[in-house]
């Protein structure tokens, strides 16, 4: 089990680097898809089948298809080299370091269980991971779950608002001919 885990981790890290390094946006998008699939493989190797399948359905199957769709429609060429000011670079580096510093301590705290790529006993009970996730999500994490759905709703409304504003800019702006067409 841990051999598969290490191989998939290597694939995940390499493809994550590829997302940043490749200059062609489409190749970057494909690297991201490989990264998401490798993560799904990691979940599956740990026995969390439901999580793995959900990862594929939501991220690889829906979100990345839309990203790919947009990239193909925009027909972007190779990204031209852009120079950023010193302030921007400093902010980016600081954010990266902060992120890294936040992620590393919890990983180090559970390093012994993480390095064997196994889940704790009560997560792989014979009950089935679907049931376990469901009871956790609608029991202990109910408020967080509802809050995240609210955030998604805000996102949808925001997207609709942005799309609407664009069409009204194209059309005549004075109210007289607003509803003519």
């Amino acid at each position: 089990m841990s051999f598969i885990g290490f191989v998939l981790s290597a694939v995940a890290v390499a493809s994550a680097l590829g997302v940043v390094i490749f200059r062609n946006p489409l190749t970057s998008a494909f690297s991201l898809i490989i990264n998401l699939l490798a993560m799904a493989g990691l979940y599956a190797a740990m026995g969390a089948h439901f999580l793995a399948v959900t990862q594929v359905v939501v991220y690889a199957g829906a979100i990345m298809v839309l990203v790919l769709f947009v990239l193909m429609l925009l027909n972007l060429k190779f990204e031209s080299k852009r120079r950023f000011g010193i302030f921007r670079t400093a902010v980016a580096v600081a954010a990266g370091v902060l992120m890294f510093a936040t992620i590393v301590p919890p990983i180090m705290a559970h390093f012994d269980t993480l390095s064997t790529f196994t889940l704790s006993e009560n997560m792989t009970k014979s009950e089935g991971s679907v049931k376990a996730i469901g009871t956790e999500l609608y029991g202990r994490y109910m408020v967080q779950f509802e809050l995240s759905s609210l955030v998604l709703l805000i996102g949808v409304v925001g997207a609709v608002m942005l799309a609407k504003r664009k069409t009204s800019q194209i059309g005549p702006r004075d109210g007289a001919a607003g509803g003519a067409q």
Partner: protein
Amino acid sequence: MVELFVLIVKVIFVMNLALGLGSLCTWLERKGSALIQDRVGANRAGAFIVSANPVINVLLAPVRMMGWLGVIGTFMCDPMKGIWKEDFIPEGASKFLHGLAPIVAVLPIMLAFAVLPLAPDFYAWGYYIHPRVAPIDAGLLFVLAMGSVAVYGIAIAGWTGNNTFSLLGSLRAVAQMISYELPMGMVFVALIVVYGTLDVYNIVEGQQELLWGVIPKWGIVMQPVGFVILLLAGMAETKRGPFDLPEAESELTAGYFTEYSGMKFLLFWLGEFAEIALFALLLALLFFGGWDIPWVTLPKGVWWAALLGHMVLMAKVVFFCVLQIVIRWTLPRFRYDQLMNLGWKMLLPISIANLVVTAVAKVML
């Protein structure tokens, strides 16, 4: 060791089943379309084999028969031609992505067969055997996930074609597939609510009972609206029937695989026909009781009952393959706005309403 052996046997069986059903659909499509359009269809290859020796001549009669039926032409000559044909890669296309696309289009469809049960569980030589490769508890979602991964093959194919027809075809295909995945998922959720499980095997087992002791508790009885939605969404998902806009010959040459030739081209077709078979299998398992024969209770865990169940299931699968092919050759093509309206304004709201009604009924009853 025995587990590994059983697993390998199962993998070979399921792989052959998927490929075999795919090729069967190819033949059904060619001969069936000929029947519907009042043509003869494939009937040349092998039909004229004669021998001077009268004994051998009699022995060759089945070969001639298969030749007349187009079996030799479809199963042997066409793949041979595909293998020997020049593999043409358009100028400026990435060789790697061009080769990757047909694999990505076919592989997920084959993988989806891995989680679907093909017969009831049975005992053989003291071992309890599940007739499916991967008994995971989220089987139904896995099929959905694989369906959405197959979209990438089509997207890559259209992109690497370096051709407007290919790109337009693949854009149409991707938009169509992600639109129709939503109602499909909603129908799956409604089924999960009805049978209380995500596992396809348990859904089939739940359909073995009788409703009020009279009607079989099949999916079509419990979810008639869901069946209609899944039939429409599945036919759109396989990009066939009245929904074959991504490969509309009269508009886009061949759509996303315009720039493909030889075996890569055939792989796309094989993927499409395997998808038809997969979808027929899903319909049979989810809505028509799988291996259930109405009002007949077979003993559990016996090998002959499992074999009989498998044959019953396969009969249902072939029926749905034929149904899809007949629909595809009978109805004219949709317009693109009609396709999108059907998906987003009709099927999606109806499927959500269906889910709500199902959930309320489940709680009330």
